[in-house]
Every structure is written in structure tokens, then in C-alpha cells.
């Protein structure tokens, strides 16, 4: 589904992402762990095209997308969330999702139609809001949402684009402990049915262990290991390098 081949990003001498080979099978949930500064977010930026790699390729369905701009990759089915919530703060929650739906379905370049009149977009947006449990907040301005709700809204934006590969960048960051289980079940529900692949960076080990089919460990920009949770946890190198050095 998604693959990186020797993906590398250097700033000067320092390799922020260092020759990463990743393969994500259809329907697979791959967790990415690693200490702060290991290059996980940078890896996401390279995969989504927000940054250009110094070296290496990104493949989507076997097709080389390394040179494609972000929006073209998104149209090929690559969706992502951001570490720091990024929703459209001055729009209402519902408008946020409608924008995402409309972006996915096409027809955004229509200057002379009433956006609100498109029932199909509205229905799809409401469905996405329902799925993350934000329906009751539809008329609130997204900028005024609580943090946990923003996280959910972000996932709704992602869902609206019906991506085939989803990149989740620390979806639990800043979410209070009480809200974690709910968010976990939302994420779980996204993946069960659809054959959708997920790449998720997360620091909550319990969350990773619950969701991930495989775990990739990053350290100093390089991929240290990528295997089933049990194997990774038992792997001496990983134990020593990642768990021993970092919390």
C-alpha cells in the first residue's frame, strides 16, 4: 500500500530521517515509537510531501509519489492528522467537515453555487461527525473546542476524505487520561472494516499495544526494528536503545 525506500532527510550533516525502509500492507495498523527527536514527525512530513527528502522514494500502491505535491498525494488517498491539532478555527465544526468532504468529492472550485445547498456533502459530513461523536457540537466554532474534541474533529476531517492510508501523528497528545479510551475506540472503529492502512506515532505504549499489528521503532532518524509487538518488546536492542534510554 505505502512504502518508503531509503527515505532520508538531512539538514546539513545531520540526518533527521536516516534511510528508512517501511512497508505498510493493506489493512495493516503500524505503530511508530521512538524517543523525542527520533524523526517520527519528519518521516510523516516526508511521506505526505510537506518536506522533500534529500534521498529515497515514497511509493503509494507501488507508484512513485516522491515528486508529487501534498494535495496530489492526498487525492491518491493519503490522509494525515497533525501532532498539534490543526482544524479551521474560524469555521464551525460542521463547516470544517463539509470542507473536507467537498475537498474529497471534488467540486471545490465552484464559485457560484451555494455550498450549503449540497445535501450530499452535508450528509457525508454529518455521518463523519456522528462517527467521532461530535454531532452535538456542529454549530460551535472549531477554535473554541476543548482539546479532546479538536482531536476528534481532526479525525472526522480525516474520515471525510475517505483515505486509504491514514497517518496519525500522536493523536493522544494532550488528551486527558479519561478521554483516551474513547479516542482509542474511535480510531479502532476506523480501521476494522475498511481495509484501510494506518501509520500511527504514539507515546502511550498501552494504546500502541492495543491497536497495532506491528510496531516500528525509530531512533536517531533510523528504523531500529519493525515487527510484531511481542517480538519488538522482546528485542534486546530495542529494549536497550529505546526503552532503556527513553521513557
Amino acid at each position: 500500500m505505502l512504502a518508503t525506500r531509503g527515505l532520508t532527510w538531512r539538514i546539513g550533516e545531520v540526518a533527521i530521517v536516516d534511510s528508512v525502509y517501511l512497508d505498510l500492507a493493506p489493512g495493516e495498523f503500524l505503530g511508530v515509537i521512538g524517543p523525542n527527536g527520533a524523526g517520527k514527525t519528519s518521516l510523516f512530513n516526508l511521506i505526505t510531501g510537506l518536506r522533500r527528502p534529500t534521498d529515497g522514494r515514497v511509493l503509494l500502491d507501488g507508484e512513485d509519489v516522491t515528486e508529487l505535491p501534498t494535495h496530489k498525494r492526498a487525492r491518491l488517498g493519503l490522509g494525515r492528522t497533525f501532532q498539534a491539532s490543526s482544524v479551521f478555527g474560524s469555521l464551525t465544526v460542521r463547516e470544517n467537515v463539509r470542507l473536507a468532504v467537498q475537498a474529497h468529492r471534488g467540486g471545490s472550485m465552484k464559485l457560484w453555487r451555494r455550498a450549503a445547498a449540497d445535501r450530499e456533502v452535508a450528509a457525508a459530513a454529518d455521518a463523519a461527525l456522528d462517527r467521532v461523536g461530535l454531532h452535538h457540537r456542529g454549530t460551535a466554532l472549531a477554535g473554541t473546542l476543548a482539546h479532546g474534541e479538536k482531536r476528534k474533529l481532526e479525525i472526522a476531517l480525516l474520515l471525510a476524505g475517505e483515505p486509504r492510508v491514514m497517518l496519525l501523528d500522536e493523536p493522544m497528545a494532550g488528551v486527558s487520561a479519561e478521554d483516551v479510551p474513547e479516542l482509542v475506540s474511535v480510531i479502532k472503529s476506523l480501521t476494522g472494516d475498511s481495509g484501510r492502512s494506518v501509520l500511527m506515532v504514539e507515546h502511550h505504549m498501552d494504546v500502541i499495544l492495543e491497536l497495532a499489528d506491528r510496531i516500528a521503532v525509530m531512533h536517531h532518524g533510523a528504523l531500529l526494528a519493525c515487527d510484531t509487538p511481542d517480538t519488538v518488546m522482546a528485542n534486546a536492542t530495542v529494549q536497550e536503545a529505546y526503552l532503556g534510554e527513553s521513557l
Partner: protein
Amino acid sequence: MSVEPILSVENLSVRIAGLHILQGVSFDVAPTGVTVLLGRNGVGKTTTLRAIVGLTPRNGEVRGTIRMGAQSLLARPTHRLVRGGLGYVPEDRCVFAGLTVAENLRLAERRGTTPAYDKVFALFPELDRRGRQRAGSLSGGQQQMLAIGRVLLNDNRLLLVDEPTKGLAPKVVTEVAEVLERVAESVPVLLVEQNLAVVRRLAKDAVVLSAGRVAWTGNAQDLLLETALTKSLLGVGSGEVPASARSESGLRAPQSRAKDGAA
């Protein structure tokens, strides 16, 4: 603790852009030795240090009390706090890349005091030798030495040090830890650190943050010995605390990397 703390934080809350990052954090920093601030990524360790030194961004909001001795630190501008003896070594070192090493040091000098160049150069002979080199061309470890050296030029009542070993090679991690150990002999340090081996070597007291609150305080060595506690508080995954954290000379890191793990 019967000794008067050098710094006491009470009920500290920080909101940044609507995000409630710290939700009522209270702890004391002992007047000697290293107090380490622990917790998983993203629990607010850096935010805590930055709030203490007054660097919360404009869209942030800080509540609570922070005192050093009898003096309240909140709402005082950063440069005053620093001049009052609060040394701050930020995350990612933040040396001025375009300035030379000597200029970086010169910037930290203060009027009315004699900068302790002999002390700094005794700790870091390298900084003396590389005085004319641009700081941006230093290695990560050297930059970290410069960042610490900059702060040590002046007398401090307390040092705040944020992840000094982040992204450094194993050998350099050991060097940085050695330096911090020597520094802590004369000035108390509040340290944010992810490397458990370094924590093991340096820390006397520990404060563990979890989801914006203090989850545990007490003796750092006790904490590290309690495997179950460490695991639940710090989220060190299944399995026990690695051997490296327990051995005194255990500042080793992986020798080899499995790059082809995924292929």
C-alpha cells in the same frame, strides 16, 4: 524534607492556545543536587521549565505560584529572572549558530560581575580552543557544552537544564552527564531528562509528571528500583527496566542498528 527548598512550584497551571498543558503542578526543588523532572513525551516537562523561567508564549496563560526563596518569580520578565540567578539551558541547545564560540560566551557575560571563564574552560577546554569557530559548525555535543558553559559563566542559584543528552551520541551522553555531575556539586539543578541511565547517575530527587499533573515525587533512586512503579508512571513498556539503567557504568547505547527491520 526539612531543608528549605530553593524553588517551590505550587499549583502551576499553563494553558497555551486553549490547551491545558499543566493542570495544577506542585513540587519543590532541593537546595542541593539534581532534581529530575520525569514523564512521558508531551506531559509538560519543557512547559514547566519554560514557565519557571518566564518563557510561556504570548497566547499562553500561567497561573499558580513559583517562588525562589521568598521571591515570587511569576510575571517577572525572563531577563530579570536570569540575572537573579536562574540559569536556563534550553532544549535543542539554542546556541547562536552565526556567532563564534567566544561571542556566544561573551553574550552571557553580565555587567558588574566577573565572568568565570577559568571555571568554564576548566570544564570544557574545547571551548577555549575553538573560540573563533562559528558555533553552528560545532558538533551536537560541543554545542551542548557551549550551551551549558554559557550559563556557568555567571553565579547561579539554580540551573534549569532541558534534555541535555537529546540526540547525542552515546559517548557524548556520558561526557555531558559527567559535566552535569560536577556542576551539581556547587549549584542545584532541575533537570529534564529522558535517558534513564543519566537519571540513575545524577538524580537525587525525582518529580514525575503525567497528563499535566504531578504523579509521583520522592527519591529518584527508589523510583528506578521500583520496576512496577517506573513502568506505570513512565510508561516504560512491558518487560523490566533494562539492565543499562541499573548498572553504574551503563551509559551504553546500541552498538548496531537494525536498519532493515522492515524490509
